[in-house]
């Protein structure tokens, strides 16, 4: 009997917070670093009589995110009411584009098990509002069984994009590459910062199994994954669980399962899936996007990371892996570009960004390049000093560390490190040599007498000079100048 082969069939739903100044249907700020229930108004609190009004910035960010996923903007989309009762949902329904989305039919490329590129199709991206956040007194942090629960509506009405893939994902590894690439491209588009630690990206996965004997397992929806790692582990766990059931001849139940990150397992959802109905949101007209608007947003679309990496290889002659490394994180790549724009040699700038900039950022636990103290222009100047022979590489690193530790400019750092740029030379060197000779008349006599046939005394004087200039003179110039003075 041949061994049964199981193929996972996985679709992924991603929620991303879009980057806008105000909420999707009102003018409340999207800043979350405030006291609970302070960034709220009649609209996002769902007060009787209030009406939603669509924020056009949300529409543009949705279009940008969609374009980053190779989607097509739809000329007409609609908002619906998605009904269910929960205390974090102020109107008892969520306004969502669920059925007629703003953009559709895109794809993201990932590598399959054999290392070949494959497309994960993106069915669509739609706009919707976020709900409030609940804080429960129950030990498991869930609403059921909690004696007291608090609701904060600051998050209510935050703009979300939900991105739904086709079931083209075949492994946890592909899933992670899909979400990683997708996140990178969305960040590049400017649609969202997608800060994972701020909960700006949340995942659900639909996992089912196809068996080589012709059996198909039912679809299981796994919820509550808030990190790449959780997504990977949850899918791996679910694949293993379903395979085991199917191997033993059991049936997979169509259900919603909850990922428990601490225990590393999925459990059947205790709360029954809410009964949902959709009607057209009568308070919002259809969203009509004309070609001029599409063109304008398309022209705002920045270069995507893969295109940028290609350019680095072609124009800057960077090795592919360096180009990939730099373009992985947009702001690091932007920093590098700024260095090149300021005149830095691309290869040297790439090296400095990859090694020194990242080292200092890691040491100082700086998360965003924007918070890193040394500007691309300053780094470019520093690199220029090495290229111009004014600083040695070792000296430049010393200056770099000093600048980042003390938030100061190059000149101040050079001075503080006791370095005189380009070393001691010319008249200054002559002065020092003359004073060294003057302090050692007996050595001078010996040289002049011609007894120093092996040049030992000359070397001795050279050594004294180098010591005097703290090694910051070119040995060749020292010996030339010394001989010139002695022969004068």
């Amino acid at each position: 009997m041949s061994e049964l082969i199981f193929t996972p069939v996985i679709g992924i739903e991603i929620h991303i917070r879009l980057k806008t100044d105000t909420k999707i249907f009102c003018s409340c700020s999207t800043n979350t670093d405030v006291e609970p229930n302070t960034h709220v108004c009649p609209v996002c609190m769902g007060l009787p009589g209030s009406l939603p009004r669509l924020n056009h910035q949300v529409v543009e960010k949705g279009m940008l995110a969609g374009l980053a996923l190779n989607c097509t903007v739809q000329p007409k989309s609609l908002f619906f009411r998605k009904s269910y009762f929960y205390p974090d949902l102020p109107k008892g329904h969520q306004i969502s584009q669920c059925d007629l989305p703003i953009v559709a039919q895109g794809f993201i490329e990932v590598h399959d098990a054999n290392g070949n590129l494959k497309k994960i199709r993106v069915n669509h991206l739609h706009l919707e509002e976020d709900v409030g956040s609940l804080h429960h007194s129950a030990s498991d942090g869930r609403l059921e069984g909690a004696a007291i629960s608090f609701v904060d509506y600051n998050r209510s009405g935050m703009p979300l994009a939900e991105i739904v893939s086709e079931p083209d994902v075949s492994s946890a590894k592909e899933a992670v590459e899909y979400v990683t690439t997708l996140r990178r491209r969305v960040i590049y588009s400017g649609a969202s910062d997608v800060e994972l630690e701020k909960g700006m990206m949340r995942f659900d996965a639909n996992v089912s199994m196809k068996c080589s004997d012709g059996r198909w397992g039912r679809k299981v929806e796994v919820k509550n994954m808030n990190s790449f790692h959780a997504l990977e582990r949850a899918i791996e766990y679910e694949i293993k669980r379903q395979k085991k059931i199917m191997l033993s001849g059991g049936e997979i139940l169509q259900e919603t399962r909850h990922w428990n990150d601490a225990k590393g397992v999925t459990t059947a959802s205790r709360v029954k899936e809410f009964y949902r109905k959709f009607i057209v949101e009568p308070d919002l007209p259809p969203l009509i996007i004309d070609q001029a608007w599409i063109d304008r947003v398309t022209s705002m679309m920045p270069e995507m990371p893969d295109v940028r990496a290609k350019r680095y290889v072609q124009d800057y002659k960077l090795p592919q892996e360096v180009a990939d490394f730099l373009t992985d994180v947009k702001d690091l790549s932007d920093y590098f570009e700024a260095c090149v724009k300021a005149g830095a040699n691309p290869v040297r700038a790439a090296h400095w960004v990859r090694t020194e900039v990242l080292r200092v950022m890691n040491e100082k636990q700086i998360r965003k390049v924007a918070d890193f103290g040394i500007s691309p222009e300053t780094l470019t100047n520093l690199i220029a000093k090495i290229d111009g022979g004014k600083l040695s590489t070792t000296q430049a690193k010393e200056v770099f560390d000093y600048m980042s530790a003390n938030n100061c400019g190059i000149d101040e750092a050079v001075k503080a490190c006791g370095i005189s740029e380009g070393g001691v030379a010319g008249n200054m060197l002559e002065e020092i040599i003359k004073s060294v000779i003057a302090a050692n008349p007996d050595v001078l006599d010996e040289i002049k007498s011609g007894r120093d046939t092996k040049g030992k005394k000359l070397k001795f004087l050279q050594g004294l000079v180098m010591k005097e200039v703290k090694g910051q003179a070119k040995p060749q110039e020292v010996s030339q100048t010394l001989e010139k003075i002695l022969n004068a």
Partner: protein
Amino acid sequence: MAELYELDLSSASEGLKAGKFSPEELFDSCWKRAQSCEKNIRAFITETEDFAREQLKNSGKSSSIFDGIPTVLKDNLCTQGIRTTAASKILGNWRPPYDATVWKLLRESGAILMGKVNMDEFAMGNTCGNSAFGATRNPHDISRVPGGSSGGSAAAVAAGYVPFSLGSDTGGSIRQPASYCGIYGLKPTYGMVSRYGLISYGSSLDQIGPFARTVRDLQLVMQLLAQHDPMDSSSFREKNPDFTHNPNVNLKGKRVALVKEFQSFTLDAPISDAMKHVEKILEDEGAIITEVSLPIISKYAVACYYALAMSEAHTNLERYDGVRYGYTVQDAKGIKEMFERVRSYGFGSEVKSRIIAGTCLTEPSRCEEYYVAATKVRTLIAQEFARAFENTDFILQPVTPSLAPKIGEVDEDEMKGYETDLYTLPVNLAGLPGLSFFTGYAGKLPVGLQLIGARWSDPELLNAGVVLERRLGSPKIADGGVE
């Protein structure tokens, strides 16, 4: 001299501007009148005398025609800091933290709020008896209903509490009580008056509009309210319409159509008499009486209306869960029990029926067949009206087939109920303006009729109203059960 409360809006405003009397004197007269009638009529849910007297301290500072003019608002219009109930227990003592746009416009123009008035709960009903605060009575005959759902707004104007008021119309809720109470009521074109701050029933059908004792007063209110509001996405964006009153307008050459399919319907004698009388007046004024056929509307409008209104209503009422405002329970064991108890106690039975109906109509297995089908039929209805208005300027028809019924009287004739609905609901489905106008009295009961115009024809519709009022005469103030 007549009592000040008898003055209409224009005359009261002229009197104030000419210094013939003060805003306090006007308010006192109206307030006294309201107090003397109120035990019979029961129009108020919340009286706001203190608020009004505070407002009066600042009267006389605005040049607006509304400065110092008392008014009342239907209690589904949000008023900042003043209890707003939608005539439901579920809102408890909720005081909105914001003003509805219409009230903001009136308040900023100096209008004085005398109170929040009764209605059918969440505007669901046509008697003003389906209220958590009891029934309002018709000021012409307190044994009869004032109509609904904006019954309080109509009764208060008819009895002389105030010269004008605001109501809302989802399927006839302005036009029908205006007719029963013998005054004028306009349901404007959908989108002409901002709905921001109107507690929603059927969002795509709801429209706020004025009640008054003269057509000119309706024009004055519309001139203020008909403007774009960024807070309402369905608010029109075109240039503000011109409602300037011209007493000499005429209807020469205007086409006024009767609906072919409605001609076989039974009407009470005073109403059919009024129809004939008005047709004659119109012809006399140079108008051409024609006929339009509305077969789709006659057949499907009522079913379409209820499917849409209830589908929208049940989602609009999902927010009343006791979590954030209004009635709540403190001792529920778990969130599910809390939702159940709040909604079971808070909503009246008519509202519950409509929520259940709306839930069923949009339930996934039936949604295509009912809700989605209704949205498509609605498009056909709007198209049928649009075609009709290519061949006519106005449609003339009754508001209801009978005069105001007795309180508690249930009409067993189902067909009559269906026909009643057909006079008012289609106008909301197509977003058209509808004017309910006074034609005269049958005994002590007033008789009203309805004139319907094409979308955005509200100014022309009111001009036609001016002609009709000129010929038919203006209504008198109802006795309010006291004289």
